[in-house]
């Protein structure tokens, strides 16, 4: 018996999403080396379980919405983001969800249930509090979930947003991914608390913790928080303890990481763990798992093929859509030159 309400099919689906996350990132690494990406590449290697498991605790059918941070690609895939969208984003294609305007996984679809982040850490907390507020005001039994890192929790925006959500008892779950580092900064230079969940006490809300590399545990702990939120009991701070095995971005060789640390965490790889467990518990057979993995690769083959040769956006599209009205920004005068008549006319 699975330790949660998850069926074997769902447990296998968790594996699918984790594998999809990892393989998609691996494809991106290759494309990055080939010079096909525009901008940096951010990995979540070793953290797939926390994104996937926590997002899986939401109810897409009911319209729950999450807001990922840079390492929560997995959560977006769970919510229905398609690999080809991510690839197009990273390659700045005209057909990308943001039409080449915003980077990597900074894109959204509120219908499917994910809101795109901006780079400024912390801001998504008050914004997601606002989304949760709209659920409350319109009496919809929906839940919002926002990811923060150990670093993002030090921002003023995090504090203001979570405090507001707590006072208003909003249906919001705050998932804190404690992955040991904010860029190069270890958690002990980020905060003096022993556990990030301890920060919950300052907001009068519960703080709970789980092993972020155990996808079932991340699901289970988040599910409790989601249920609590949906029941009108307000926010929960969920700490998922994990580890960032790659650099902040691909260009970061992690000189600041003590020797051996990464290896220790490689042992705890969430995909290996879940895979072993699926087999050991008899929730899935080797062939089923292999089929899922093959499906992932096939989907990614198609996704890459489907967009690799697409063009960048047309230059002039850059002026559209700053406002609903006017619909287009002014073309600067110097671009309309050379003008035919003398300027005196």
């Amino acid at each position, binding site marked *: 018996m699975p330790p949660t309400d998850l069926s074997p099919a769902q447990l296998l689906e968790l594996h699918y999403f984790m594998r999809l996350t990892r393989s998609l990132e691996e494809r991106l690494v290759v494309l990055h080396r080939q010079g096909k990406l525009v901008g940096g590449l951010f990995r979540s290697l070793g953290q797939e379980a926390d994104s996937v498991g926590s997002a899986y605790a939401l109810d897409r059918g009911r319209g729950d919405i999450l807001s990922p941070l840079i390492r929560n690609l997995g959560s977006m895939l769970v919510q229905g983001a398609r690999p080809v969208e991510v690839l197009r984003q990273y390659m700045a294609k005209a057909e990308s969800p943001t039409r080449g305007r915003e980077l990597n996984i900074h894109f959204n679809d*509120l219908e499917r249930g994910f809101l795109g982040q*901006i*780079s400024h850490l912390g801001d998504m907390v008050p*914004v997601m509090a*606002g989304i949760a507020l709209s659920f409350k005001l319109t009496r919809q039994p929906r839940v919002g979930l926002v990811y923060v890192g150990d670093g993002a929790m030090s921002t003023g925006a995090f504090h203001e947003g979570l*405090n*507001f959500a707590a006072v208003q008892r909003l249906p919001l779950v705050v998932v804190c991914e404690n992955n040991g580092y904010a860029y190069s900064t270890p958690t002990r230079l980020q905060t003096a608390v022993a556990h990030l969940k301890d920060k919950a006490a300052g907001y009068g809300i519960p703080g709970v913790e789980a092993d972020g590399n155990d996808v079932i545990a991340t699901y289970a702990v988040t599910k409790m928080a989601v249920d609590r939120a949906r029941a009108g009991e307000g926010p929960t701070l969920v700490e998922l303890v994990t580890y960032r095995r790659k650099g902040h971005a691909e260009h970061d060789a992690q000189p600041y990481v003590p020797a051996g640390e990464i290896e220790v965490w490689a042992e705890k790889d969430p995909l290996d763990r879940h895979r072993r467990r699926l087999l050991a518990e008899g929730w899935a057979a080797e062939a089923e798992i292999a089929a899922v993995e093959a499906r992932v690769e096939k989907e990614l083959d198609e996704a890459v093929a489907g967009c690799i040769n697409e063009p960048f956006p047309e230059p002039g599209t850059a002026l559209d859509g700053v406002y*609903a009205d006017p619909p287009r920004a002014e073309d600067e005068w110097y671009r309309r030159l050379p003008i035919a008549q003398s300027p005196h006319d």
Partner: protein
Amino acid sequence: MTEVTYLEAIRQGLWEEMERDPRVFLLGEDIGTLGGAFRVTEGFLDHFGAERVIDTPVSEVAIVGAAAGAAHMGLRPVCEMQFIDFISCAYSILTNYVATARYRADLSVPMVVRGPCGGYVRGGPFHSQNPEAAFVHTPGLKIVCPATVRDAKGLIKAAIRDEDPVLFFEHKYLYRRLKDDLPAGEEILTPIGRARVAREGTDLAIITYGAMVWKALEAAEQLRQTDGVETEVIDLRSLAPLDDDAIVAAVRKTHRVLVAHEDTRTGGLAGEITARISELCFEWLDAPVKRVCAHDVPLPYAPTVEDFVLPQTEDLVNAARWVVRY
């Protein structure tokens, strides 16, 4: 017709929009039980209830951020900054998140941030600010500054109905000093992006906005009486987008321009307007465009120094004479 104050006009505008559209709700510090530091929302809590009139913690980032999130979901939040000086706390989320949302992510953010701006009230450096310059510089935001009772009502209503984020800066000096008759039955809506000719004139134009419109009108009257000079006064009303047509029309008509505002000079909006004039109708100028703005210092609060730092009617008269005689 009933005579109402500028403050009451804003109140009416908010009230009517909340009655008209259940999606509209308010959030801010002390706006509920107290009805706001200046009582703009007095009585709203009782009438509309605590879910539509939300007293928030002292958290401007949360106020703006939560409004943005709610706006994405189809609500129409109106945020109050207790004094507009505290909008600076939300500068990052406004300029980075809110202003860019439609452009970068096709997200609608129909929200309003309003609050009392401006000096001449002995408020000192942190209760007198005019924060428009930094926001006018931010593509994606609209900014309006009503000078009249009618526009106070017409612009708050238009701001709430706009599909994009609008900053609404209401001048606290005008709150209770300015009164006008408003027609009872009529729905007042002032289009965003359109300036108003506050006074017609042929010799000189003063382009300005907010409370400074009234100083410009005083100056214009004085100039007529003492100098026989006819001054046109343009009340911009909307600072983003700016009404280039109205600016150009005034320049073409008068050939001499003062751009005036209460905010400090360097980097203020007057520079932008001057540059537009230079670009759009340089040929029509018979004199350099000159600016009449506050001195480049934080605003001090003792009456003598505040009055020195801020532009006064007499300064406009002096400056106008210079431009006319040029």
